[in-house]
């Protein structure tokens, strides 16, 4: 049992650290400031992702033949940790971490050649068409249908909660191609060009006050059969097989560590009755509990990675990563709101931070409300617990 880095790993760590220090210059940080809530978010992300790609580090987790890196799990861990420390975001996941593995695992050579390089270079922005108005956590009950007509599918229906659809070039969809069997059967995996006639996007206003979610409508949308991944009717299997190989950084430990350090400094500077908020025993206790949970989660993630590296299936603890990661993110967002005090409830609108009189309250507020979604999407907390109870505990 040993978590020390070797000489080579330490050298790699230094290399990654230097890389991120170099690419995260002031211009880029300005574009990304405010994260998803910022109007320059997509522009900043594309620029950032191209800098990653220039170094060959846009998709280190992909197989080497498609542009990935031949790294050990420890190297992946180091890369993600250093990225988080540098305040650099994970790439927008829908292309590089969600659809690409389906394409390189189940796609044809033509599909790989057509889509993967454009994902690496951020030429295409992708969004995910899974959820539907009637199928949220019960994903397999989806109804958006695709009927075969010659070399095309005619798609009719709608998708909902589609992040970034308004800025996307492509959407990968689970669609129903057959209604006769079990609901998991008869689902196919289609790649749809967002500029196809019949595709419309309606923004969904959310309580965080910025636009990231959408509803996507398909009305007689013609999709070439060559845009189907794998076999007809096997889409559910493809989508599900990906869930087994959860993304390495699903718990977002590196991001939470950085957010927590920033929170600590915000709290240190906040004064209540002449005393730093950090010296308030109740606040300190809440902060400590989150930090300790995060320290545990960091090692849970390392345990999962170490067992994956040995070729084993991820251990039972892997089922907890999303649930616990989300809980921690929300706790940090909640504490940041509390640090902002009265200002956490003020709407900044068009005012500058200076005019409003508070530096981070607006960000705290947006991320708090935005963050409530994390325990709903990607399998709600309750679904995560159901899955763990059934598949891990055998209940």
């Amino acid at each position: 049992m040993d978590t020390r880095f070797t000489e080579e790993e330490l050298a790699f760590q230094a290399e990654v650290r230097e890389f991120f220090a170099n690419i995260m210059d002031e211009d880029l940080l300005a574009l990304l400031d405010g994260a998803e809530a910022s109007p320059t978010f997509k522009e900043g992300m594309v620029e950032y992702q191209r800098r990653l790609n220039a170094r060959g580090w846009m998709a280190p987790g992909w197989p080497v033949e498609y542009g990935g890196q031949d790294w050990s799990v420890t190297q992946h861990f180091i890369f993600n940790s250093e990225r988080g420390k540098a305040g650099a975001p994970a790439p927008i996941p829908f292309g590089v971490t969600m659809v690409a593995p389906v394409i390189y695992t189940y796609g044809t050579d033509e599909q790989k050649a057509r889509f993967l390089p454009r994902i690496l270079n951020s030429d295409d922005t992708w969004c995910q068409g899974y959820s539907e108005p009637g199928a949220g956590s019960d994903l397999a009950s989806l109804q958006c249908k695709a009927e075969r007509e010659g070399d095309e599918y005619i798609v009719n229906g709608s998708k909902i909660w589609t992040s970034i659809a308004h800025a996307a070039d492509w959407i990968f969809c689970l669609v129903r191609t057959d209604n006769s069997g079990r609901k998991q059967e008869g689902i196919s995996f289609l790649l749809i060009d967002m500029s196809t006639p019949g595709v419309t996007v309606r923004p969904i206003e959310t309580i965080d006050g910025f636009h990231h979610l959408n509803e996507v409508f398909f009305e007689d949308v013609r999709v070439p059969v060559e845009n189907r991944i794998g076999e007809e009717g096997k889409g559910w299997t493809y989508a599900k097989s990906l869930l087994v190989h959860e993304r390495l950084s699903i718990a977002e430990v590196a991001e939470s560590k950085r957010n927590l350090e920033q929170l600590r400094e915000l709290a240190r500077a906040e004064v209540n009755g002449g005393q730093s908020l950090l010296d308030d025993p109740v606040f300190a206790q809440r902060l400590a509990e989150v930090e300790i949970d995060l320290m545990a989660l960091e090692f849970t993630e390392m345990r999962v990675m170490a067992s994956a590296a040995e070729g084993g299936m991820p251990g039972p603890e892997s089922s907890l990563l999303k649930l616990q990661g989300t809980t921690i993110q929300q706790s940090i967002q909640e504490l940041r709101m509390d640090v902002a005090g009265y200002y956490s409830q003020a709407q900044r609108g068009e005012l500058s931070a200076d005019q409003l009189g508070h530096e981070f309250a607006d960000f705290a507020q947006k991320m708090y409300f935005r963050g409530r979604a994390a325990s709903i999407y990607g399998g709600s907390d309750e679904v995560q617990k159901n899955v763990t109870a059934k598949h891990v505990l055998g209940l």
Partner: protein
Amino acid sequence: MNFNLSEEQSMIRDSISRFVQDNYDFDQRNATTALQHGFSADHWRQFAELGWLSIPFAEEFGGFDGGPVDTMVIMQEFGRGLVAEPFLPTVLLFGGLLQAGASEELRSDLIPQIIAGELHGAFAFLERQSRYVITDVKTRAQREGDRWVLNGEKTVVLNGGAAQKLIVLARISGEQADEHGLSLFLVDTFADGVTTTTYRMTDGREAANVRFDNVTAEATIGASGEAFELMNPIIDRAVLAVAADALGAMESLNAQTLEYLKTRSQFGTHIGSFQALQHRMVDIFAACENTKSLLYRAACAMDASDSDAQRSLLALKFMVGRAGRQIGGEAIQMHGGMGMTEELSVGAYVKRLMIANTLFGDADYQQQRFSAVVNAGSRSAVARAVA
């Protein structure tokens, strides 16, 4: 990066696990804790024969030179089986302090006796008023000629009844809670002026209050006045051990609770089919995994003398307290009325976990120390803001 045990560590684990299987079902355990001093002398002899008592000691005394991970492996199995024998007080605390601070002569005399299973010891560090502040010491040691004479009382001395010798924390100078001015003394429990009052802890293990009325110490352990520095690493190792013991108990208890959910039938179905119970079971499974992750984190950091060791250990001990209480409470609740009975071992596990919480400071105390460590930093920002 790997979390695997070495071949030797796996052998130790398997050997303890077999011992537990053969000797520690719940009835056997109850019979064991009912014995004088709350454990079995036969078991202790077996521990010696199997070499387990030698593991943490240096090779020069006949030991195995085991590190934090070795300790962890042993204690986790002991916790799983609710083993009552005093490995923590005799080997890790008493033995650990001897090895760290006793004279060469004493070490080569006493440590082999511990390894052979012939000598029991205990570490007497608590007092009625001290709660978790280990430096709050009123027991005095005074120099009289070439002897040290002790007066005072130490409380909740684990294994204080069976111990032939104690290491006693006493004050030689300074104010009541000062870190400096503390010394450690070796005291024979049969010496004149030593009065031992024994009692049982909730889980059946024995503890004692020990009074010292003009007791002459056999020897000093470590440099005079510097016991704080000497005992801290030994206590850290003991905290890791307690946490490993607790993790073993949590794993065993969770397995029992899970089995109960699968077999207990109500309203025509097994109760584990109810979502309310499923989610609670997932919560305590997660609490156990969190404890395991922090245990591995602390053990690896201690093994590597990493700067992360201190805060990892504080985090771990906090988690042991919080997770232990949650797991214990849920185990009783989900076992229903049966969880309240002495027929099942559930209560014994819960008590073991509650003792683990209090040993060397409970969750609240660890959280405060954790906060003090991680939030330490310049207060100038506040000073500026106030000005």
